[in-house]
């Protein structure tokens, strides 16, 4: 028999029991219990006299309670005195209350404020009665259909586990602070939500004039008529993006939407439905305006963020470098010229042949790139597709990186839908692309967990990657960090970033040391390349900037010629029909042997 009065006593006085001066000493707790004339501290002898509870009995009662509700009372483990511990170290009031409620239903339910940390005993009691009332099957089903809100207030065990989970989920303050700082310092990019109401699109489609695949104007009369039957229509037009079907004579609505939508090449003959984006200029202006004012506010706040971890020490006065780029054949470029970077982005043109178990020519060349020279510690983002996922991971490993995250780029179309048609993959359609994130060393300056490992953005030209990544990288490493993009094209150049790749136009270098090293590299190259009129010109020294640029351009031309030839050869796989007069023989031979290797395979 449980001494419910004792349970009550423990609940009421748990704080006093555990704290000094009692500190949970069993003997003292017993004394308090007996001397305080609490209910249940004495038992009737039958003749009107009451006998005080003996300590032995008190101890037995406590043990009974523990037997019924394990861990509700925890004693100090004292190995020397095996028979009986001397101290109570913890009282689980929740469990004790539940136990007490068994004797006095809803006693604590009515008195307890239902704060989040307390057990909601009423729902518990309800759940208990439910349990008893139904059959096994019903119970099983009920158990599964409990939604989260209910299960949060469920059994104490579960509550504890929930609390533990929330504790474990708690982020270090560095994450939280970095995130908050990012919110206050990242410039806002204009955001206009997309309307998800199909009706609006069809209403609009009947009231627009479309000329030459452009929306020219709206018929106001129809719109206001629509507003009458569909309240909120005009408000929606004024606040959201709408996509209006561009119905043409050849359009067959029953066919549904075109897989290519706005990128369709046969816009004037395609029978599928295409869409035009409609944003009223008032909305555009409003968005422009609010973004601008928000950004001004952000800019005025920038100078001194109190949280400085991961920021450059001269954060507020240092100006970000303008865009820099070098046109070069990455495979033959000396990476030492560039120095070290905090962030590297690489989007190699993986050349994947499905029937080969391993990478083709390009892949082995890629693997051979001395990317390990670019960073002492830092982050690399490597775009991979299909089979290159494995190859990419392997390469990162070789270059001294650990694959720390994998980002998925969810590709969307004009309408913000994922790509589900068009046989974009071999077995399944591909709606996403993979970006490996590699980490080298243990950089202290990285701001973690600001972004999530997903990018949702529209597809653009073939193989053009989303610009969102630049923002993510900048938030991670800071806007002043040196950042490099390999295999970049003209549209990839941007302030704060260094871009290299063979499809860039000319060069643009601002960092003096890079410029110097690059000149030296080119000089070296031209020396090896033998005597040539253009290479001679480079040797001439001039102080005038204009002339320098001129030189650079010529150099560039020479370099381009070289590259083009190289690529041509590469493409046609012609071995050595023509020896490039500019090239040193050694690399060519190397390349040939490589090439031969592939053919052997």
């Amino acid at each position: 028999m449980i001494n419910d009065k004792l349970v009550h006593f423990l609940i009421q006085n748990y704080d006093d029991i555990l704290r000094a001066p009692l500190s949970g000493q069993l003997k003292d707790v017993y004394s308090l219990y007996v001397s305080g004339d609490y209910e249940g501290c004495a038992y009737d002898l039958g003749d009107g006299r009451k006998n005080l509870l003996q300590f032995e009995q008190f101890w037995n009662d406590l043990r009974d309670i523990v037997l019924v509700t394990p861990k509700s009372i925890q004693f100090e483990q004292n190995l020397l005195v095996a028979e009986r511990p001397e101290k109570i170290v913890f009282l689980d009031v929740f469990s004790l209350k539940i136990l007490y409620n068994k004797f006095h239903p809803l006693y604590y339910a009515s008195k307890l404020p239902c704060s989040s940390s307390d057990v909601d005993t009423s729902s518990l009691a309800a759940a208990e009665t439910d349990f008893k009332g139904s059959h096994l099957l019903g119970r099983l089903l009920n158990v599964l259909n409990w939604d989260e809100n209910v299960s949060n207030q469920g059994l104490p065990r579960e509550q504890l586990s929930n609390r533990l989970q929330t504790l474990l989920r708690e982020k270090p303050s560095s994450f939280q602070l970095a995130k908050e700082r990012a919110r206050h310092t990242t410039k806002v990019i204009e955001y206009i939500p997309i309307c998800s109401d199909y009706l609006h699109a069809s209403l609009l489609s009947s009231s627009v004039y479309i000329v030459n695949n452009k929306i020219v104007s709206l018929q106001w009369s129809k719109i206001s008529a629509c507003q009458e039957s569909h309240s909120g229509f005009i408000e929606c037009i004024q606040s959201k993006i709408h996509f209006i079907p561009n119905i043409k004579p050849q359009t067959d609505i029953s066919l549904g939407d075109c897989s290519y939508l706005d990128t369709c090449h046969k816009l004037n003959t395609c029978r599928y439905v295409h869409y035009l984006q409609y944003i009223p200029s008032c909305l555009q202006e409003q968005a422009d305006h609010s973004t601008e004012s928000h950004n001004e506010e952000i800019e005025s706040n920038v100078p001194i963020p109190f949280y400085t971890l991961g920021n450059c020490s001269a954060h507020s006065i240092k100006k970000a470098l303008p865009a820099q780029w070098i046109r070069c054949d990455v495979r033959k470029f000396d990476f030492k010229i560039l120095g070290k970077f905090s962030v590297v982005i690489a989007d190699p043109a993986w050349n994947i042949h499905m029937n080969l178990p391993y990478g083709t020519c390009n892949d082995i060349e890629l693997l051979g790139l001395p990317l390990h020279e670019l960073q002492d510690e830092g982050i690399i983002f490597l775009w991979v597709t299909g089979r290159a996922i494995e190859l990419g991971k392997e390469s990162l490993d070789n270059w001294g990186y650990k694959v720390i995250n994998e980002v998925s780029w969810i590709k969307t179309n004009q309408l913000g839908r994922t790509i589900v048609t068009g046989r974009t993959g071999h077995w399944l359609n591909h709606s996403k692309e993979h970006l490996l994130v590699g980490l080298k060393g243990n950089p202290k300056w990285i701001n973690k967990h600001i972004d999530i490992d997903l990018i949702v953005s529209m597809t653009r030209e073939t193989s053009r990657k989303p610009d969102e990544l630049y923002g993510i990288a900048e938030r991670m490493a800071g806007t002043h960090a040196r950042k490099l993009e390999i295999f970049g094209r003209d549209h990839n150049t941007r302030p704060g970033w260094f871009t290299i790749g063979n499809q860039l136009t000319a060069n643009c270098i601002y960092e003096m040391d890079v410029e110097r090293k690059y000149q030296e590299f080119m000089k070296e190259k031209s020396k090896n390349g033998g005597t040539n009129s253009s290479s001679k010109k480079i040797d001439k020294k001039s102080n005038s900037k204009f002339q320098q640029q001129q030189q650079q351009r010529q150099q560039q031309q020479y370099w381009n010629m070289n590259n083009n030839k190289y690529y041509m050869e590469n493409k046609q796989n012609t071995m050595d029909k023509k020896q490039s007069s500019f090239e040193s023989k050694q690399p060519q031979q190397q390349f040939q042997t490589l090439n031969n290797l592939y053919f052997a395979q």
Partner: protein
Amino acid sequence: MAFQDSAYDQDRSMHNNSHLQGSNQENTEMKSKHVSFKPSRDFHTNDYSNNYIHGNSLPQQHVTNIENRVDGYPKLQKLFQAKAKQINQFATTPFGCKIGIDSIVPTLNHWIQNENLTFDVVMIGCLTENQFIYPILTQLPLDKLISKPGFLFIWANSQKINELTKLLNNEIWAKKFRRSEELVFVPIDKKSPFYPGLDQDDETLMEKMQWHCWMCITGTVRRSTDGHLIHCNVDTDLSIETEDTTNGAVPSHLYRIAENFSTATRRLHIIPARTGYETPVRVRPGWVIVSPDVMLDNFSPKRYKEEIANLGSNIPLKNEIELLRPRSPVQKAQ
């Protein structure tokens, strides 16, 4: 010129309208007269990563076809319906085999050796942490369990898939099971039961919001000629949690991808993890689910073989589906 004309049109119609409508309407019109409904000329795209930083919403919530993936494609909608119907029609009883993690390998070995059971589609793992996938992969004679051609799906968090890479890339493995696709499942928000919360370690640079699957093919199937075995390009390699996704260890999306891809009726799902009470393992028609926490324990090899014998080991071709499904372009004879 055309533009000016139409602007005039708009003005005029607004004017006319105000005559026709009551005074109440006029009021709202007066307001809206100040704002221009002229279409803006530039194409606008949103940066959802930036939008997330400014505290608004997660990028994946802005995908507009989450609830109906084939929105706008009536042909695909029909295909999905037809396939779902046929798959349902040719499905075995939902089977569960409730056994402890340690007895999974012996039990499956028994099925292989004594009961002669093989499966065409085998899925391993679910969307929880603490899965014992590695021991399963190394101890189980998977090549005997999976018939040829057969399909293997391994679901885990991306970190785990990464760890498995070394095993799956070694020569013996890579020869038997060709890695074909990498699938991804994305929870809709951080409250989702599929949010990989505890998987977050302080090491990672970005918050994780996805689960990965390694899809392998064993034996030979050809996309263009094996339409009776596989239906390619029906599903995509990405699933986003939908509103009707029930709480559990395995969202139905994972099963659906496998069902839509392979026409086989013998499907096995091994969950080498304790998923517990919060993430129940439900049963699914057409699947044998082996897990310590599966809700049913009704599997008997004899009954299963009988059912398969009645159903056939592959869902038969159906004209309606053949007409609708995406196929490889027919190559011209040379």
